[in-house]
């Protein structure tokens, strides 16, 4: 079936929007800086739009879009970071090759459980998590706000994430049973 160019573009953009949550997660994991993520995601969208006619309907949209996103990640890191302050090209390529297409990036169900699990955290841990993920502060800023050392914030955050991961897994398996 051959769509007219306008309809095809529309189709490609719709696919993009469908994959957006996963794409954002993918980009976030590699560039780490929350403020850079929006730029990369948007630049990816512009390329996807420009090159829409190169995408063949029915082929693997995810693989196609991820290639563009990976390139944009590398570009953004090169622009924004000094060479020894960013992941190397090789490390990023190795990670990308290992990212599985089927795996999900936060289903509705997971996100629902996650919200419940955050509520169940100890108050200070919950505050750190909120400052990090809702207010988008980095650990040094969180340390200032909470009157902790940066190390303490790092430890609190990684502990909280471990607790949350277990909690979500547990709730999902309980629901499954």
């Amino acid at each position, binding site marked *: 079936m051959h769509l007219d160019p*306008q*309809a095809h573009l*529309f*189709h490609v*953009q*719709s696919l*993009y*929007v*469908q994959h*957006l*949550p996963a794409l*954002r*997660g993918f980009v*976030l*994991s590699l560039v*780490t*800086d*929350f403020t850079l993520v*929006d730029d990369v*995601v*948007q630049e990816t*969208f*512009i390329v996807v*739009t420009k090159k829409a006619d190169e995408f063949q309907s029915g082929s693997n949209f995810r693989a196609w879009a991820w290639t563009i996103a990976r390139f944009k990640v590398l570009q953004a890191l090169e622009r924004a970071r000094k060479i*020894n*302050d960013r*992941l*190397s090209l*090789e*490390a990023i390529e*190795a*990670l990308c090759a*290992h*990212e*599985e297409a089927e*795996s*999900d*990036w*936060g289903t*509705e169900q997971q*996100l629902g459980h*996650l*919200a419940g699990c*955050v509520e169940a955290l100890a108050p200070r841990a919950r505050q750190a*998590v*909120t400052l*990090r*993920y*809702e*207010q*988008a502060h*980095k*650990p*040094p800023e969180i340390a200032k706000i909470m009157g902790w050392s940066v190390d303490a914030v*790092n430890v609190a*955050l*990684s502990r909280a*994430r471990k607790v949350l*991961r277990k909690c*979500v897994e547990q709730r999902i398996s309980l629901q499954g049973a």
Partner: protein
Amino acid sequence: MDSEHFQTLIHKHLDDVMSAEERAEFEQMLLTSPQARTEFWKVAKQHAALRTWGESRNGQQRGTASQRHQSRPTRVMWALTGVAALAAVLVLSLISGWGDKPATVSPSELSQEDTSEEYQPENMPAEPPSRSVAVMRATPDVKWNAGSTALAVGDSLQPGWLHLQSGVVQLEFALGARVVLEGPAEFQLVSSGEAFLKSGKLRAFVPEPAQGFRINSPDCLVVDYGTEFGFSVGGTGASEVHVFKGKVEVQPDHDMSRKQMLTGDQAVKMATGGQLVAMSANSASFINEDELGRRRHENSRTAMERWRTGSDWLRQHRDTALYYDFQKTHEWSRTLVNQAVHGLPEAEATVVGCDWVNGRWPDKGALEFKRPGDRLRVSLPGKLMDFSLIAWVRVDSLPWLQNSLIMGDSFQPGETHWFLSREGNIGFGVRNVRNQWTSYKSPPIITPETRGSWVMLVTVYRGYEVNGTVNITHYVNGHTIGSIIQTGPHTLPDLGTFEIGNWAVKPDEPIWVQRGYKSRNPADHVRCLKGRIDEFAVMRGLLSDADVARLWESGRTE
């Protein structure tokens, strides 16, 4: 690999607190160990999910604030940042926090309140195969029972119930049978060749290809072998079958062995014990298609007359700057003349794409916004102090973060946006001197049930009321649904060149980037309306509650 240590490194990477030495070690592990890479993505996915949670929570909190607002009858102002709340009267500030980088603030900031990251268009181009078994053709005077979906002409119907309180609907089954159903009625669509009448009255027309069309009732089954019959199920449940033309088979109690064939002018009634009592057919007691057509016409005529009083009021009002009544003069007319008597004659709307279709009534014209390129372009020069926007819209779906009613594209202070959000809220915003938005979003008003129905949307903007505040009020179908007072800084709205039902901005055209377009949300530039518009006005002045109610009275569909 020291798994505990590697975990720590992943977290440090994700939190962006990694030293160069740690990074070297981290990369070494990633390059040499597949297990390390798997572990990385596991933790990273959870990190991303948390960020999604954090961002959506941000949106939710603002959402809650406006819901609180909804339940209060008085005008409430609410504080987001930086503005002191004054005791009982709260003060709402701008959606701020973007002031530190004005050059990058875009119109999409208006959508900050609904930027949960998981949005998806609701009608993807690749639609699943349709389960439609019938199409709604006509609905004069129809009232649906509370809680049931209001259906409009042209709607596709899937198997399911129609709960009709009063009025008449006409259904076309996919296999060709037509049914005129009179309310009150409880009617179930079973398949493209079968239905169930629990109570109510219908007249069926069964052409050759639809022979074998079946209608069940609680106490009998009717199979049609051609042409026309009436079928009623009374409150007590006793069915009557009247054959006007052709042949119909009736099975009392769904018992094959007792089936009976009726021909023209014969009728039967189910008596207790499943007995069939013969009677003569009474065609007059079942509404026929001619009568239906007459009623539709009559209905439309009365409604159009009522509408014309409101339409004339708008056309002649000294404050009306723009008025389009969407009554087409020719099939090929590609401009809408500005009908406002005191408006600028050159402020006509150029129609791009958009097919002419029926509006609220068969004799009312409308333009349909269906394809991504469908749009009206308008120029209305001059700054506005107080103004009111009025539109009659039939929303078919809301696939985008912002679905345009009007969208300016000057990227200058004064640029004005009016839209429906994906969640069904009315959004309104004026770009101010700080490149932020003086904006207000109503509680949700377009729900899946109201899609496909005509609604009257009004937004009234009162500029510089007291101490540099502005007041924005949204109305739906004649009633206020929310009002807000915002403190400055403000800019006089300046509609300039804008689009109705679309937005001109395309991210791959350099001109928009030069003007300052930068979206936080990709695909956010896609804002084309999916639906119809059949009346639109801009007034340089304030509509009162009573004015809005009167306009609604004159233009409402039921």
